[in-house]
């Protein structure tokens, strides 16, 4: 097997064909990036897509209408040790209680300012 060829600063011009390919180590490409908003309120923006947002306590997050081009983008958010509410101009179609500390909720943006909830504790 030839040696691995490192490629630096790759920019793909079209989708990379990863069909039937897997990752090759236990240290996988990370699905989400941890992000600490460091506040008790947060307006979700494009920089939060693909993130795991962890809040320190009782918080309110706002699903904004500012990420219209990231269809199927998703974000997790979790709070400890308190509950968290949702608000905002975008439509979040399903609500769940977040009374449990460390409860996690995953949102997926499906376009036209519509969010759905896939998982919730």
């Amino acid at each position, binding site marked *: 097997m030839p040696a691995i060829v490192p490629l630096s600063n790759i920019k793909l011009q079209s989708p990379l064909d990863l069909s039937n390919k897997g990752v090759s180590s236990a240290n996988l490409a990370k699905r989400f990036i941890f992000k600490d908003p460091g506040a008790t309120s947060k307006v979700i923006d494009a920089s939060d897509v693909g993130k795991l947002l962890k809040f320190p306590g009782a918080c309110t997050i706002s699903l904004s209408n500012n990420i219209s081009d990231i269809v199927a983008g*998703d974000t997790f958010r979790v709070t400890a040790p308190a509950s968290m509410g949702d608000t905002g101009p975008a439509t979040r179609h399903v609500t769940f209680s977040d009374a449990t500390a460390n409860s996690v909720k995953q949102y997926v943006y499906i376009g036209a300012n519509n969010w759905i909830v896939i998982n919730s504790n």
Partner: protein
Amino acid sequence: MPSLVPLHNALSQNSVDFNSQTPINDRGLLRYSVQDYNTNSHTLTPADFNSVCIFAGDTQLVLSNFGGVTPPTGTEIIFLSRTGYVRVSTLNASLYTSNGPFTQGPYFAGKIIHLNNNVWVFAGTNWNPNAFTVNNCCADTTTIYQLNTSAVFEGAMRAYTTVDLTVPFNGTIESYSDPVYYWNIFKNGYLTSTTADDCATYDYSVPYTFYAGPDPIYDAISFYSVTGQTPTVRASLNGNKFFLSDVGTQHDCYSTDAVSPGAPLNYHANPGDFPNSPLIFMDGYVINIT
């Protein structure tokens, strides 16, 4: 920093070394695509792998063997309906679940993950088990009572115990209801039974005399119901409803001032009835005539 090196139409020859790599822009590494079918039936295809499938109305979704295409282990499919439920059935595939699961309603997303060999499992919590529900004309209570054993749901469905609706039937908890009182009965989120008596109203203003023990002659009491009741013909009272006062015109499910709220009580239709053969009232309904 050196300039970015473009790669066109890259095709990896072996597994990609993503060690410690991660997307750095706002878009991230998108996990799903979106398939907006906007229909109420669909057989899942390989195009639905790792997608959010969007439907409209009460939707029947078929999980099949994808025409022989084996999904990679870990493949996810998410589905929801904008305006209804999504119920999953299987054809040459397996889904580890109780029978007939469905999403909880509009925009509740169901998620399944492929294990292997066309065996899928649930992921996500937005599901209901097999369940019966009803539209309640009064938005009041889902507990109703009946004597009539005529089939409302098909016989096989009566075996289910995890139901939203339980009906005390002659003292036995059963899992079916009487559409005379409630209409539009749903099973698994799908409308299965309707009645022409859609949330009809009746005039419960006619007094009838019943008797409580132990000496019924001196314990006469007036209960109010619709016209035409014949308390002395016990069988005719099956499932009929009585109130402690003249409540006027109401839906059948109206409950304020119903006879015997919350607990069964015995009354007699005739002075001198045998003490051990009372009419049993509960929440207004006559639930036992034996």
